[in-house]
């Protein structure tokens, strides 16, 4: 962290950088597209009257290998976007640097775990159809 020339209260905290913001900005629009797809799929082509998909619908839907791939991609973007955003909100609670690094680690673990769990779930559903 470069000791900045500023003489105001404290040196800038290095927590947020261009890349974190860029990821949030890139994942945002991506999310909208995939989410539209996700909502249409879940509310329009299911067999129940309100369009929700039953278990068998889902298994059949997952047979085409592209679907799990899209769903996993969707999971990665939504988890990244939401955790970066949530961390931004926590930043506004003015945490100390230690608390902030703990939060950052926690969220990264949570993100990785959710994605791994999602991949496992998608593969098990796909395998059910085999």
């Amino acid at each position, binding site marked *: 962290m470069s000791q900045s020339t500023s003489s105001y209260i404290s040196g800038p905290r290095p927590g947020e950088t261009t890349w974190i913001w860029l990821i949030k900005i890139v994942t945002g629009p991506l999310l909208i597209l995939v989410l539209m797809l996700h909502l249409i799929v879940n509310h329009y082509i299911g067999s129940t009257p309100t369009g929700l998909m039953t278990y068998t619908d889902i298994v059949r839907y997952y047979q085409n290998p592209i679907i799990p791939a899209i769903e996993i991609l969707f999971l990665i973007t939504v988890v990244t976007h939401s955790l970066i955003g949530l961390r931004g909100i926590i930043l506004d609670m003015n945490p100390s640097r230690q608390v902030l690094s703990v939060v950052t680690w926690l969220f990264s673990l949570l993100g990785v775990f959710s994605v791994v769990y999602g991949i496992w*779930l998608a593969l098990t559903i796909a395998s059910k159809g085999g």
Partner: protein
Amino acid sequence: MDQTRNQPSAGKFWSWFIPVGRQVGGWAFALNRVTAIGLTFYLFLHLAVLSLLAKGPDGYNGFLALTENPIIKFGEWAVVAAVFLHGLNGIRIILTSFGVGVTRQKQLFYGFTVVAVLIILIFTIRMY
């Protein structure tokens, strides 16, 4: 005098939610934040619930019956509403962040909110 003796504004971190003197941009920001928190909560709830899928059909279909319960249905509707309000407002923020329409951000917000409400209506009809 370092102890920042602030005055009427309440505690620090929820002060973005205090409506005093807020103008359009401030509301959009508060709305965006509320929907963000709601959506993130729903995301992890959604992931947890889907684990039923791995346990086999009866567990999951049993849960499906739950979605008819009005409270859960309203929750689902709220999620859909939050998605479009947050999403379209996010597009507005991205546009203004790259200088597009920055001077007309209020109109942009009104426009996107109308579009969001329309889409939400479509889904409401679909769900009820």
